[in-house]
């Protein structure tokens, strides 16, 4: 740029200085943008930290009032009465019973649908069925709650007249129907990932289509199918509105699906609907209940992760 090659003028130096300054500004701007993006990514970490912090903080206050042994072994749950008992088993029994009913529906149906879609269905049908299942996954759970209370319960009462208006059975059935799309969608993905050569090998030794599906494809996709089941379990345990609407809010230590019973999630809703003063024991119980729920689903997720790792078949 200089007029005489090899000789730098004053103008040259300033231009070089400007160029350097521009370059530095550009680098700084790039760094700033990266920092901002990084902070956005950190929000998810803060969310987790926030959840753990809030749940543990309020629960610590709660467990100062209520010994943890009572919390785990008491057979009554009456936190809002004068004679307060805090036995989480009561709520846990409702959660476990309704989840068991839901899984009894969702696992067989979901698996069969997945096998059919992955191994037997014609291409066109699969192209239609997959988005359809996906859309069902988006239906608000309160709508399913309406179905459970006002459609399934009256239907069941026709078969079994003594059934109370609120019961775990109908809530569990509808919850199972709700979970089917999750289970079948993930299981199907796992089965589709099984390489064609395995199926061809099976056919080559004379297996039928059905034998190939149940004895070759399903075992090969086992880790994926199992993690679909685990996801279904953690959905069922965390489900709230169906149970709050259809299973009643009466704490009840029972494993009989024909009875009404409150679950952990329904209890939280019940308390939140009432006007509890901030800082009372009643207010803190929902955080203790929430912590139990969180630990339960976390255990499920970790179990799913381990299952996937242990049984992973690499091709």
């Amino acid at each position, binding site marked *: 740029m200089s007029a005489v090659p090899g000789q730098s003028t004053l103008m040259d130096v300033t231009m070089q200085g400007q160029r350097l300054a521009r370059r530095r500004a*550009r680098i700084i*701007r*790039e760094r700033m943008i*990266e920092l901002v*993006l*990084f902070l*956005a*990514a950190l*929000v*998810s*970490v803060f*969310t*987790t930290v*926030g*959840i753990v912090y*809030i*749940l543990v*903080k309020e629960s610590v206050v709660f467990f100062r009032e209520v010994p943890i042994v009572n919390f785990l072994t008491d057979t009554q749950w009456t936190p809002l009465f004068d004679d307060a008992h805090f036995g989480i088993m009561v709520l846990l029994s409702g959660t476990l019973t309704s989840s068991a009913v839901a899984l009894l529906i969702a696992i*067989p*149906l979901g698996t*069969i649908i997945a096998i*059919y879609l992955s191994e*037997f269905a014609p291409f066109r049908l699969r192209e239609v*069925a997959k*988005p359809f299942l*996906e*859309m*069902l996954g*988006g*239906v*608000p*759970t*309160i*709508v399913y*709650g*309406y*179905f459970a*209370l*006002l*459609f399934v319960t009256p239907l069941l009462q026709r078969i079994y007249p003594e059934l109370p208006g609120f019961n775990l059975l109908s809530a569990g059935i509808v919850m199972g*129907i709700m979970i089917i799309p999750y289970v079948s969608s993930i299981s199907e993905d796992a089965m589709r990932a099984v390489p064609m050569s395995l199926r061809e090998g099976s056919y080559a030794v004379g297996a039928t289509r059905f034998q190939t599906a149940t004895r070759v494809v399903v075992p090969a996709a086992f880790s994926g199918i199992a993690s679909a089941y685990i996801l279904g379990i*953690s959905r069922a*345990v*965390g489900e*709230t*509105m169906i149970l*709050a*609407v259809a299973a009643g809010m009466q704490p009840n230590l029972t494993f009989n699906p024909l009875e009404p019973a409150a679950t952990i*999630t329904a209890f*939280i*809703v019940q308390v*939140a*609907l009432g006007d509890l003063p901030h800082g009372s024991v009643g207010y803190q119980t*929902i*955080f203790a209940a*929430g912590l139990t*729920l*969180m630990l339960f689903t976390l255990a*499920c*997720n970790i179990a799913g992760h381990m299952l996937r790792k242990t049984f992973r078949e690499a091709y």
Partner: protein
Amino acid sequence: MVALMIGVLTFVALFVDMALDGVGRLSWDFFTNYPSRRPGQAGILSAWVGSTLVMLTTAFFAVPLGVAAGVYLEEYAAKNWITDVIEINITNLAGVPSIVYGLLALGLFVYQFGLGQSILAAGLTLALLILPVVIVATREAIRSIPQVIREGSYALGATQWQTVRYHILPYSSAGILTGIIIGMARAIGETAPIITIGALTFIAFLPPAPVQSEPPFISFEWLMSPFTVMPIQMFNWTSRPEAAFHANAAAAGLVLVIMTLAMNGLAIWLRYRLRRNLKW
């Protein structure tokens, strides 16, 4: 095949039943009336206005944060333990029950930040709830862009941000949009976290209008206003003993289902179009 038919028929039966119960209540008045003690006059005005405002707030927080986080993880993040922690976190957050987000919001937003039972608190809660959905969709959309595009951009002297701004984001926008729509469809139907932060079930007024006649013309008072949303209104009507209110619940549910199905359908259609047009 039979199992699939059972599944499909169950759904059809459920929706037809609800449609039959609710369709009689659907009229213009239903959308322009406040909830009422008389089921025949009750409407969902405050509910749909509340839902709209909460959704706006949610989108305002979730979209920039989610897209930025997705871009960071795909384009910038180094392979180190911090990145691993963030990724494991996002996977785990997607599995946390929605009611736990409600508890987080109750403890943090409502009491510690003093936001109260406001539209802002609800919008923030739902934004955190759908953040994993937006992040995962953004990452998948970005991942499908071939490396050649980036290399071409760098070869012309573009910086990393310029590459993201002028190439990565425009090319992945349809995929990102799909994720945003699915996330919003989920947020609009969420009931549990909003009940937990203490949204009222009976609201017979609207939040202050965002546009005013005197300066400064735009008001953000509505952010701090108490509110109700569609799913809560439906929950309220469902849990009443009178059958007349159940018809209202069915009608509200019908509106809700049509809205979420339409949003999900739009997202699926967008993705389908995208897959067909994508030829690198």
